[in-house]
């Protein structure tokens, strides 16, 4: 390209475009900033009118998020003596004592286990299936590929009824394994399609050379193809992880006690006398911020992946 092109936007156009886009970005980020800010407010600051932009930060939301508490009569409180830790002190301010940890930690860990477990499985199965579809003559290939894609059109609730019954029979209801298998199946369609695109781009000649050098198919696959597809595999993994991390419908219907993930749990956090918004916001912050950081750090691969998955075909 020459340094000057007649189709290059003028400096003035760039400025106007920049200001409009930045304006939209700031507007659209306000709800997210508000979630993070509310997590550091006291309950009374959170519901103040007019909404408080400046406030003195407090960790009350986080303390309430991680503990369960109970109210005591003043004489019982006095009998307990002075609070020993900073979080005890916060809770005492409301005539309460901490009775134990809340469920949030467990729910968060369930999200981690189910998210990473299903991501690993769907990327593993997706990679080998995509390789087979890309390199070998599979009978009914196009039909199978379309079938794989069409499984994504089903509303989750529609599949949830028989899965609920099936899992009840198999004892998979409300288990981490059940959720891992389910999310793997949901993610597989995306994973196969994305990865087939990445593997299609790797020239077949590399493997052929390896085969001539005496490699077996397996060796050619994991010594030649896998390293070449590493970036594609990584960005597919991120998409699978984000889906499993954010999923709500199946989690709300199929888990209740032991295997419940964070998304159905966070909205149920309540405090004394109504919704404890700072605690809800604190829970949401811890759950959402990792994904935000991820998105910003890995933006090159992610943004390409979104359009790639949608635009190809």
């Amino acid at each position, binding site marked *: 390209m020459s340094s000057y092109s007649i189709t290059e936007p003028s400096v003035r156009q760039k400025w106007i*475009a920049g200001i409009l*886009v930045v304006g*939209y970005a700031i507007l659209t980020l306000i*709800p997210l900033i508000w979630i993070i800010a509310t997590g550091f407010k006291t309950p009374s600051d959170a*519901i103040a009118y007019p909404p408080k932009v400046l406030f003195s930060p407090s960790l009350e939301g986080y303390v309430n998020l991680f503990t369960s508490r109970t109210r005591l009569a003043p004489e019982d409180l006095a009998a307990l003596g002075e609070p020993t830790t900073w979080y005890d002190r916060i809770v005492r301010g409301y005539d309460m004592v901490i009775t134990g940890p809340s469920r949030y930690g467990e729910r968060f860990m369930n999200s981690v286990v189910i998210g990473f477990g299903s991501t690993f499985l769907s990327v593993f199965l997706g990679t080998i299936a995509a390789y087979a579809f890309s390199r070998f003559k599979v009978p009914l290939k196009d039909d199978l590929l379309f079938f794989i894609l069409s499984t994504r059109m089903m509303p989750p609730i529609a*599949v949830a*009824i028989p899965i609920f019954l099936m899992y009840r029979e198999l004892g998979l209801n409300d288990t981490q394994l059940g959720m891992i298998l389910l999310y793997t199946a949901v993610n597989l369609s995306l994973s196969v399609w994305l990865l087939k695109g990445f593997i299609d781009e790797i020239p077949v000649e590399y493997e052929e050379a390896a085969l001539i050098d005496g490699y077996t198919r397996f060796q050619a696959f994991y010594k030649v193809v896998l390293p070449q597809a590493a970036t594609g595999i990584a960005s597919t993994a991120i998409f699978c992880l984000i889906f499993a991390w954010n999923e709500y419908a199946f989690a709300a*219907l199929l888990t209740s006690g032991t295997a419940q993930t964070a998304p159905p749990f966070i909205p149920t956090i309540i405090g004394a006398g109504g919704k404890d918004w700072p605690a809800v916001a604190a829970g949401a912050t811890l759950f959402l911020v990792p994904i935000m950081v991820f998105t910003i750090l890995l933006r090159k691969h992610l943004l390409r992946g979104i359009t790639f998955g949608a635009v190809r075909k």
Partner: protein
Amino acid sequence: MMSDPVVHRVAAATPPRLAHRIRGLSDRTIAWLFVAPTIFLLLAVNIFPLIWTIRLSLTNFRTNRPNNEVEFVGIENYRRILTDEDTWTSLQATAHFLIWTILLQVLIGFALAYLINKKFRGNDLWTTLIVLPMMLSPAVVGNFWTFLYQPQIGLFNYFVQFLTGADPASFSMIGEVRLAPWSIVIVDTWMWTPFVMLICLAGLRSIPASLYEAAECDRASKWRQFWTITIPMALPFLMLAVLFRGIENFKMFDLVVQLTGGGPGSTTLLTSIDLKREAFEKWRTGYASAYAVILFVTVFGLASIYVKALNKVKDR
């Protein structure tokens, strides 16, 4: 990267005969070995349940009464759903939601993509920041939006007061029949406009600069270039974005169930939420299964017709 030692270790740890058999597998066997787990899992978790749903839809089965005798009722469930007023009410709510979200997201998304494509400095970072909402959990974010929508104390209501002077305590976005359908449109648009924007951006970037240069030589006005080059070239991408948003929003559940739960009344009772109530609150399993089949056939049918139209536009 997989390195030699790993291979040797795996080879050493495998009994010689088995190792020989694994190494010597034919391409055909490998192809099946590689595809089979995926097909099996999809059959087990997608197709088998679908067939089961169709079977259940012809019965009066209720999950909460497993001991009741299950009767075959034929297409009775389908007849009842299609003649039920409530089904049409929820389809109307879904149509309102679909039409407005797609319209707003296409307009705003395309405009943003057009502006970002002016390649001002730092545009990739700002693009990423705009994309953030769509990466987050719709249920968690939807739940927090009920806080922003609170009368008096909510940030959204305060914002409306700032713009229009309306009393922030005088209206409740999710509590009023008049406003609730718009409350879900606003949040969905906030969340998913970036998706349309990214696809449009891919479309705009795929237009070769030579087309504009040729138009410039022919002294075509910018306005004309926009309508005769930009729009036709970006149209397949726009249509694709509409397809994806259409399918996704027809299935919409998590965001709206957390925002309004289908209320007030049934003003925001989208079909997925209606279906969930029938299946998991009223436990009318057979009836709900028939409902699910109808929805699936609808999405599948509409999507197929739409894809045909899309391919026509692409081939032009």
